[in-house]
């Protein structure tokens, strides 16, 4: 199975199969041609292939005369924050993020710290396809040097943005699971800056993934079991690049990753009122929230790049995705798991209520996520079947921002072709669990019958 996925802001694939060293070298050379001669940051996560791919990317950048600041192992949000902070033209991040073991990716970051703007990214893809790379001679080559002291400005800005006094006073204990990923070396200074007592599981940097790196309740069991015995107030499950988080309450209940955004965005809106930007398959919890606060809600296609572009276009104050991510442009243009953690802790400290109470206060939707195997090329035919038949939701309001979605009074159903595997992903949400499950099942059946 060839699994290489190209986008204007990144390449991802299965290491050694579709995502080859050569593909990353060429893609980095294309970006380097675009950023020729200027400053570019480089970072990676802990996966087995990441050092190799970062070496290839570094070589490509130096060949085009770029001044490369290498942050080494570094979470995505800290890298993205550091791009404008260092006056860089952009950044290259090598890392698997939420992707399963065996996968890796190269992601491009623009000068503002957001994923590379799609127009710029298309230029990079054109250069990649043409194999036309800028080259400097021996006396015009760039330099590869380690970035120094990049954490302090990030922590300083984060604590200033959050105003951590209330959190510090509350004396929280938290459990963290960074899945042996890029966040590991940063957890101690980070939790010290927030003034919380932290215990980490999977806290050592590791080339192997101790669990599925997607922060979801089903991956939170070991952490959840430790909450009560350790008397922790909140548990945070990170993706391996620390861009996504799911939560575990003080009672040891893992909660849907959809709630991460709802709680964090609510807290962010207490600081500033303004538009909220989310992708088009985020839980209705966020619709309720925007309505309650009286702010506009803008929906974009799936992906950090689209949400970040929406935030920029609409002057949004907070954005994110239901997969457990939040961004606050006043702080940085990145999905930031540490910011999300800070906002959740702040919400607990300011309200004086435990995390379980914050979760309980949200209107409870039941969200069901299913997948259907489908040949990689033909997934749009599957969506056509759904457009035609609209099983179970014939009278709803349809939307094709990304994939196909139908909204009805009590919920919605959404289908979208996966970008990484030959699957169609179906999400169904309703106030009634049985209804959500029945709709998801009807959509799955419709696709299966058509194949």
């Amino acid at each position, binding site marked *: 199975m060839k699994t290489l996925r190209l986008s204007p802001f990144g390449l991802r694939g*299965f*290491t*050694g*199969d579709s995502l*080859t*060293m*050569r593909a990353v*070298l*060429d893609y980095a*050379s294309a970006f380097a041609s675009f950023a020729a001669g200027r400053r570019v940051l480089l970072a990676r996560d802990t*996966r*087995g*292939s990441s*050092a*190799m*791919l970062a*070496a*290839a990317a*570094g*070589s*490509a950048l*130096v*060949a085009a005369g770029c001044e490369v600041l290498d942050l080494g192992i570094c979470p995505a949000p800290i890298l993205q924050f550091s791009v404008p902070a260092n006056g860089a033209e952009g950044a290259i991040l090598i890392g698997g993020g939420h992707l399963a*073991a*065996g996968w*890796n990716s190269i992601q491009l970051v623009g000068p503002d710290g957001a994923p590379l703007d799609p127009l710029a990214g298309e230029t990079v893809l054109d250069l990649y396809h043409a194999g036309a*790379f800028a*080259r*400097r*001679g*021996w*006396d*015009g*080559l760039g*330099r*590869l040097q380690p970035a120094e002291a990049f954490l302090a400005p990030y922590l300083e800005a984060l604590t200033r943005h959050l105003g951590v006094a209330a959190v510090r006073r509350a004396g929280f204990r938290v459990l963290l699971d960074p899945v042996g990923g890029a966040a590991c070396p940063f957890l101690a200074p980070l939790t010290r800056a927030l003034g919380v007592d932290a215990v980490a599981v999977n806290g050592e940097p590791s*080339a*192997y993934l101790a669990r599925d790196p997607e922060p979801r309740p089903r991956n939170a069991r070991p952490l959840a079991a430790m909450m009560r015995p350790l008397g922790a107030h909140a548990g945070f499950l990170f993706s391996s690049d620390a861009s996504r988080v799911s939560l575990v309450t003080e009672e040891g209940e893992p909660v849907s990753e959809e709630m991460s955004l709802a709680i964090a965005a609510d807290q962010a809106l207490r600081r500033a009122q303004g538009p909220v930007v989310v992708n088009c398959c985020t839980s209705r919890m966020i619709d309720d929230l925007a309505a309650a606060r009286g702010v506009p809600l803008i929906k974009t296609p799936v992906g950090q790049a689209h949400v970040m572009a929406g935030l920029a276009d609409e002057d949004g104050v907070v954005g994110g995705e239901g997969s457990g991510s939040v961004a606050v442009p006043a702080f940085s243009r990145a999905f930031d798991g540490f910011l999300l953690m800070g906002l959740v802790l702040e919400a607990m400290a300011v309200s004086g209520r435990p995390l379980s109470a914050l979760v309980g206060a949200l209107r409870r939707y039941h969200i069901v996520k299913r997948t259907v195997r489908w040949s990689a090329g033909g997934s749009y035919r599957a969506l056509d079947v759904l457009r035609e038949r609209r099983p179970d939701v014939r009278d709803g309001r349809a939307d094709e921002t990304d994939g196909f979605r139908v909204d009805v009074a009590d919920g919605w159903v959404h289908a979208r072709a996966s970008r990484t595997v030959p699957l169609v992903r179906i999400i169904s949400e309703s106030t009634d669990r049985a209804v959500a499950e029945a709709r998801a099942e009807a959509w799955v059946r419709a696709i299966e019958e058509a194949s």
Partner: protein
Amino acid sequence: MTAGRTAEPVRAALKVGISGVRGVVGEALTPQVAAAFAQAFGTFVGHGPVLVGRDTRPSGPMLEAAVTAGLQSVGCTPVRLGRVPTPSLLRHVPAAGARGGIVISASHNAAPWNALKFADRRGLFLTPALAEELFDLYHQQDFPLAAEPEIREPREDETAVRGHLEAVAAYVDTAAIRARRFRVALDPGNGVGALHAPDFLRERLGCAVTVVHGEPHGRFEREPEPLPEHLGALGEAVRRDGCAIGFAQDPDGDRLAIVDETGAPIGEDFTLAFAVRQVLAAHRRGPVVVNETASRVIEGIAAEAGCAVVRTRTGEIHVVAEMLARDAAVGGENIGGVILPAVHPCRDSFGAMAIVLEMLATGPRTVRAWRDAFPRTAVAKRKVPVRGPEAPAVLRELRRRYADRPLRLLDGVGIGFGDDWVCVRRSNTEPILRITAEADTAAAAARLAGELAEAAETARRKIETQHPGPPPRGEKG
């Protein structure tokens, strides 16, 4: 100049041959090419550690990163030695139990060039047969790529130079050298020697050292090839500080040129002659292997010690292969390439410095006096630019023209003129014919070299009239 022929023959920007793959950085030598060659080499030697070293050229880190990624991608473990002399890396390959080694250095080529050179698990550069296999793998571009769990983290190893220099120090009579407290001048040419040679001379050999061009930045302040005409600054340093001897290294530290106590270059043939003399006199009698165009002085020295001389084609691996086959005591090339097999069978400027200082330590005789003690001889060199496909025809034409003289066809065409001789051969690295002549006096040698240069040019013109046409792009190694 005939129409249709450019003044300078076309020189391919990327040259793949017995000396590895070399090219102009940013034109033909890119991260892509370096990474793909590393993949081919990793596929060739198999999973396991592969040493990677470089000289001081500014393009070194870029190519090192690409080579590292290339090796990892096919499941090898890159072991980075950093900026090390080529002989240190070669010797370290078997010492470290590595699968092979990649040297990132264009040796004596100008700064815009760089190169990858490949060593097998014995720490020997690839023979032509092995190199052909490697190039086949490169051209097929079909590498078995490692999956995520098979990818190995790179390692660092800083012990290669120490091990090498300890072996050199153990080989020579260190006590005798130290007792003399020599004052020496060193010109590492802004290469790796700048990092390692001053301490080696001071700490291990007890010398007082004056260094010129001692910044290891690879922006060569001196022409990188240590030819006599490039050693002015070294000669000046020798005179100024009253040094007994001056040493000049090339950027990767495998070749050595010497200036005497008056600051005058003695010629690279005599670097080799000094080393051969001292090994046969003080260490071991045995066969001597040198390249075809090395000075006849070698025969004189070997005869005095009762040893045989074997000649090979020019090219380090040709000499080394013959040395190993014959269990040679010492060998080398007439470009200041001394090979001490007891240290490691490769060209080694550090071994050369030590063995020459050992010879000086045996008595009061100065460098100049040592040189004058050998039979008087002079070598002259010329180059004739020639397109690749023309070269064999020119050499055939010369063979016919000098058919009534004694001929040697080991490497190009060698022609005897009584005791004097001249050799015309194709360069391994450039589209030129190299002419080397040796005679009793400099004037006689220059006259001989001139005669053959003219004969070669006449032959080339004749061939060109018979087969006119545009020069082809690219040259064969």
